[in-house]
């Protein structure tokens, strides 16, 4: 069992126990942590973090940037922008997605729009409760 904490600059936004934590690191792909994992520090990609609990249900967060630190029996997600499913404004995310797509149809290389699109899609996916495609 892991102690999981999601820490934002304003507060500790989530604490709980978990069997497994699944995250995606920049360049590193998906990574799942279970008890006994070697101490680990990674930079998180714009992706979701899944906290899988003993009973099999899971809490999913949209993490837009941050770090994960694993040591001993604790996993800490440090993120200044993280949201749980019911915090996400679906209509706004949908609008942001359409806006970004409109920009990209004119200029497929626009980095800002690509990032916006990634964030909007992540929000929609987490809000819909779809598990990450691990």
């Amino acid at each position, binding site marked *: 069992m892991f102690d999981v904490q999601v820490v*934002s*600059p*304003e507060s500790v936004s989530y604490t709980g126990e978990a069997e497994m934590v699944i995250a995606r690191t*920049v360049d590193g792909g998906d990574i799942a942590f279970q008890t006994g994992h070697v101490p680990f520090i*990674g*930079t998180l990609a714009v992706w979701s973090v899944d906290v899988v609990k003993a009973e099999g249900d899971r809490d999913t967060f949209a993490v837009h940037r941050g*770090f994960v*630190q694993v040591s001993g029996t604790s996993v800490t997600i*440090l993120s*200044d922008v993280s949201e749980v499913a019911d915090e996400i404004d679906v209509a706004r995310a949908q609008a942001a997605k359409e806006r970004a797509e409109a920009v990209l149809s004119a200029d497929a290389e626009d980095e800002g729009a690509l990032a916006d699109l990634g964030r909007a899609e992540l929000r929609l996916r987490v809000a819909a409760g779809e598990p990450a495609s691990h």
Partner: protein
Amino acid sequence: MPGGKERELKRRISSVQSTKKITRAMELIAATRVVKAMQRADASRPYARQITSVIENLAAGGASVDHPLLREADEVKKVGFIVMAGDRGLAGAYNSNPIRAAERQLMSYQTEGVDYSLFCVGKKPTAYFKFRNYRVDHAYEGFTADPTYEHARRIADDVADAFISGEVDAVELIYTEFVSMGTQRVSVRSFLPLESTAVMAEAGGGSAEVADSFEFEPSPEAVLESLLPRYIEARLFGALLDGAASEHANRQRAMKSATDNAEDLITSLSREMNAARQASITTEIMEIVSGAEALGSGGNKEDIAALISEVVVATSTAVLDPGPFGEGSHAPLPDGSAPAGFTIKGNQDSMLYHRPDSRSYAVTGAEVWFDTPERAEAAGFTLANTHPNADS
């Protein structure tokens, strides 16, 4: 003009009284805000601690340090100053202390020929430096009493940009550290370039030696590179929250002493007003007496008696406050007797009133007099037992 001074003092007392009401309200508001601000500062600590812990582990993992935010300039030609104070006044020395500390620092650099760039947080420092014709390159306003992380991020972005682009070669942070409710002190700290990771780790209360050997992904350098901007945001956010708590604590103290001062002022003004009232009464009596004496030489005795009784009623009305129970009521005269025309005795303890035919009329001490029983009843008094033998 008799009573002129008295009126003037009365006006001043009521003005001080309304000021006192305002300062008292501000004191109470600041007291609740300071508690909230302290809670927010506490809630922000785990993040800062965790960031520091990651840095510790990076230091132990031997992340090589060549990040632009860590790079020291060969020669410091221009220093950036982040000056954090408040948007609003009436907070004691909260605004002036960091502003003065910043100006001193800035001037001592200037004597060495080092240029400055100001990042003013709060309306007060911006106004101060603009008024004195300093260049204010960046001004942030409107959130010092209740800052969010987003505000810290905005400032951090500008500061980091200025540093990385080489516009400034060093940055100093001037803010008010919240030590406790009773103690807040101005802190002047070197902010950029950042110290080495080992120094940061130690400054954060940890040691650079950690037993675990961590795996890093993508690499220690890459983690450090994305971590450092978050680190300076977290430090600025911490300073903003400390500043907010200090601002409210200072305002609470300032408003408390303003309230106390108003109370003292009201006491001394009331004393002065009473003395003025006494003086005008004395003058009136002197006038009456000398008037009576003047009449005494030629007028007849009945005239004099009538004048004196008229005058006594007039002065006693002037001397006493209006009746405590409104129209038709009257406080007793100084010797305890009834004012002319008032025959009903009121007992304020029992809230009973006594007519002249009441059994205990003679032995009752009147705390208030009424002119008619109806007035007494209107004021909430009830008639005392009138039957001479009812309860003897």
